[in-house]
């Protein structure tokens, strides 16, 4: 299961996608919208993606994880659009015979997804401003921060 969706993520469906009699271990990671970052309060997030490339990259990551570790199965679902506090924007599930590789692969998948997949989040801060999140992008005069 490799999907980009615009609706709430069904975590049970993601777990079902990696279920197998060969699996002794299943690991599910959910990335959820967090209310506070330092002293700034988030009201919600909006996600967008370059859909064709993002889906291809998610598939590539799943394939690479299955080459690097002896996994039974792997599923990645990323949500785009509006995501409220506490809701999941991404689910990564892996199953394997034993737990060590399930934990390792799960961590590698989300860590690498966050580096290479063309998906972006926009902070809707509680103070009404909005700001695209671009790690490492120098804050220039033309910052993306917009007033309400």
């Amino acid at each position: 299961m490799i999907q980009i969706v615009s609706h709430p993520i069904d975590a049970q469906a993601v777990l079902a996608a990696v279920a197998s009699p060969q699996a002794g271990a299943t690991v599910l990671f959910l990335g959820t919208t967090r209310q506070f970052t330092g002293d700034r309060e988030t009201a919600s997030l909006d996600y967008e993606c370059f859909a064709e490339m993002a889906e291809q990259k998610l598939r590539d990551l799943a394939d690479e994880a299955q080459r690097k570790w002896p996994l039974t199965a792997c599923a990645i679902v990323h949500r785009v659009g509006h995501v409220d506090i506490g809701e999941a924007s991404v689910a990564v599930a892996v199953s394997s015979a034993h737990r060590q590789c399930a934990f390792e692969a799960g961590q590698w998948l989300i860590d690498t997804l966050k580096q290479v997949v063309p998906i972006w989040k926009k902070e809707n801060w509680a103070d009404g401003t909005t700001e695209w999140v671009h790690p490492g992008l120098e804050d220039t005069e033309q910052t993306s921060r917009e007033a309400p």
Partner: protein
Amino acid sequence: MIIKVRLFAVARQLAGTDSLDVDMAPGSTLGQLREQLAKQTPALEAVLGQVLFAVGTEYAQDATLLREGDEVACIPPVSGG
């Protein structure tokens, strides 16, 4: 040759459009496109040095030669997950 460049996130916000057409000489590189975009759309200049480009759905280096019909995507630092 006209190269279509898709813009995302802060790039789209700064340019005010999700797509730009850039006229490049045959045999131009992605790096030359990067420079031309900065000249053609000064609003993007501040970020163009820090974006990656994809040709089709694969990341590409500045040395990549562009061909007629290539679709380029401007990929600011990603923030999925």
